[in-house]
């Protein structure tokens, strides 16, 4: 694993990233590579800035006034800075999708939920949409359960199915990076297991960055883990290393449950 070349190829990289909610300095000098087709987990106590960091990647902070980025998140291979004021947030979100903490399907049919990202790109050919919807639902391990009820409301699905639908929605537009913000915190253990298996399956095709509150989850699904505290990255390493032999005392205290 260590010498696998893919692990050495970053898909994106935060360089000296700072973020401000008005006067609050929420992220401080963050440096972190996001490896291509790997799962990178962000862990840390509540309020440490891990979700804030995640939401920088698809510029969600731009939706609200008073937020400011400084520094860089470079997207490879072209190496452009996606948090610079010149980068268009709409364009960024078209290639970096996100799955939220609570399943947030639209009150539309299952089909329309998945097709939405394509429709807003102007794709309306039924054949193209049909194919993409099926491919995305298969990718999100929901096809078998949903194929006979594509026109039914997404609200009729269970919580776990809804979250997989949201993953399908994010996959439909072929994202280069998929962001997960505590995707299982609102789900029961069985649904959680399914999502975790799905994440491991998905990394064959797409680069994944996941925020999680659950350290076992980080250990189960991720290849590398970053521990954040008070807006800074305390330690970043391969997941095995972080959970067995962390180099920082703070990391060790956190993963052994002494605080957080």
């Amino acid at each position, binding site marked *: 694993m260590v010498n696998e070349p893919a692990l050495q190829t970053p898909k994106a990289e935060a360089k000296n990233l700072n973020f401000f909610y008005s006067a609050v300095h929420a992220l401080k000098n963050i440096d972190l590579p996001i490896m291509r087709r790997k799962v990178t987990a962000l862990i840390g106590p509540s309020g440490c800035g891990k979700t804030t960091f995640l939401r920088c990647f698809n510029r*969600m902070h731009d939706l609200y006034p008073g937020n400011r980025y400084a520094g860089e998140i470079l997207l490879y291979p072209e190496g452009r800075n996606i948090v610079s004021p010149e980068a268009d947030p709409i364009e960024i979100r078209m290639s970096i999708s996100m799955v939220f903490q609570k399943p947030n399907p639209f009150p539309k049919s299952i089909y329309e939920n998945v097709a939405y990202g394509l429709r*807003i790109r102007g794709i309306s050919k039924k054949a193209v949409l049909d194919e993409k919807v099926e491919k995305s639902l298969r990718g999100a391990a929901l096809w078998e359960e949903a194929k006979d009820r594509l026109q039914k409301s997404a609200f009729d699905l269970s919580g776990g199915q809804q979250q997989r639908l949201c993953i399908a929605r994010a996959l439909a537009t072929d994202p280069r990076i998929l962001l997960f913000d505590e995707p299982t915190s609102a789900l029961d253990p069985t649904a959680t297991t399914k999502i975790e298996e799905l994440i491991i399956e998905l990394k064959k095709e797409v680069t994944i960055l996941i925020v999680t509150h659950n350290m076992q989850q980080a250990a189960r699904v991720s290849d590398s883990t970053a521990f954040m505290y008070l807006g800074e990255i305390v330690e970043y390493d391969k997941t095995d290393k972080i959970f067995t032999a962390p180099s920082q005392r703070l990391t060790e205290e956190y993963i052994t449950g002494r605080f957080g």
Partner: protein
Amino acid sequence: MNGGIKKRIRFMKAMNYGFAVLGLVSTFVGLILLGTLLLDLFMDGRERLTYSFLTSFPSRFAEEAGILSALVGSFLILVVTAAAAIPLGIAAGIYLEEYAPKNWFTDIVEINIANLAGVPSIVYGLLALGLFVYALKLGQSILTGGLTLALLILPMVIMATREAIRAIPTAIREGSYAVGATKWQTVQYHILPYSTGGILTGIIIGLSRAIGETAPLITIGSLTFIAFLPESPISGEFPFISLKWLSAPFTVLPIQMFNWVSRPQPEFQINAAAAGVILMLMTLLMNGLAIYIRYQFRKKIKW
């Protein structure tokens, strides 16, 4: 000690029971008043509640008089009111909720809209007289009347729109933005469709208020006696649609009613009561429709 607590519990239960009774009485006061009013109007006007009452023009003979011109007038006014207030109100509501930056300017706009909803309707009449009749020279016409009532219900439509939009969870918006939607796409695909129920409810309640308005229409010079109908909006010849009705003089149901009430002959009081029943029924019908629409949409979309 034990006896003290039991006594205390008895007292608290009595208080609880007392409020239940008080609440029930308060609820019934409103209900009974409305019921009595309707029944009283109906009893007074029932002998005139015939089909010919709906299809006759006003007349100096009370038995022959009807509400045709008032009914048509009320309907056409509502058409103009709806056509003006709905797009303006919805657009303003969407702008204020989704687009407007939060600063002192939008704060002032918001406070003003809230205040506009409380302005007495006759003041709108004066404004309309100055603006539509004198400044824009639209005459004492259906167009002027409709626009006047549109001003009156505009704040209601704006506020209903905003409330309906505010009920949509942030998570839905973020879900839309997260796959690369623009603000307008989010409004078009999500905000508008999901708030339609609330907006429609607000619009219908606004229109049902407009249909009963008298003062502002008298101010702009609505007539009280009209024995003809405006030109039909649909004609047999090209271009088939005529807008001449917009500039026709008009009367509306409450004004017709007012006209009859103010006559000395007691027979006309019967006409007034009958017209009142029709007006009340129309209002109840519209409010009922609003409740039905709200129910239907709530069934479909639950957050």
